């Protein structure tokens, strides 16, 4: 079952840890939606099994399911005064 997950690495993780998780996600055909190297987090679409494996990694701080709330970019019209 596919789901959207937030993966947060431990604060003391390094770039190698980040790349290791990235490689695991790619090898398991997970779709990385958002990621931040400096923030050590990912938002991915993956299956339950992959999420369970990642959750057991010692460099992972938190894995949780997330949902994207409908977000609209508002449009503000301002009339230009002469």
């Amino acid at each position, binding site marked *: 079952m596919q789901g959207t997950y937030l993966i*947060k690495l431990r604060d003391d993780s390094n770039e190698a840890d980040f790349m290791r998780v990235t490689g695991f996600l790619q090898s398991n055909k997970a779709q990385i939606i958002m990621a*931040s190297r400096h923030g050590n987090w990912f938002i991915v679409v993956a299956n339950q099994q992959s999420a369970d494996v990642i959750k057991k990694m010692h460099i992972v701080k938190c894995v*949780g*399911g*997330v*949902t*994207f709330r409908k977000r609209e970019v*508002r*449009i*503000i019209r301002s009339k230009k005064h002469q």
Partner: protein
Amino acid sequence: MADPVNAIVKEIPFAELVRKAALAIADGQTALDMNSVQTAQTLADIKLDPGSVILALVEYTKEDGSIDRVETLMNEQPLSLLAYGVVPTFYEFTETVIDLRFWVHFWVRSTHVESSSEFNKTLSSKWETSRKTYGGGGGLSLNLGFFSIGGGGGYKKTEAKGSYEVDLHVSSHTAYDSQVYGLSASAACRLTTTLKPKPAPDRAVPQIITKPVAAGPS
């Protein structure tokens, strides 16, 4: 003998089974909720850099209504992923099925073995013996004025006859009775739960109210 199947059925702790299943599900639900709360906290801690999120588009229009130019209104402060619109997913157990199956096999095997035998035998025997004895003797004697000569002989015959008869009768009877009771019971229990996402609690995710700065005339 009482029916052991009913006794086994009575010994199955259905109430305890349901109670433990409910407690296990409650523990699981608590763990799921705590994980969602931890995810919400993590989402709140993760900040997006200032100027990385488009909050609004500002369109400046002319008097005739045509668009003069468009500006983007970016976040001036770090914006959390939670405020950005990524919210934790909450799950709940919507359905639980306890499938308990058991098989009881009870059997009684009775065995009766009886055997008898008879042996009859008549033994008879006859015997006969005969013994003959012959004997003889002679003598001469001289005596004064008297002369005698003599002899003697003997014959002896001994006969014996006998018979015996034995009737032999042997009778044996063996009887064996046994009853073997067998009871085998096996059970299988399966717990099936359905886990579905549920809406986040009302206060779990803050409501985002976007108030762009007032766009002034250029």
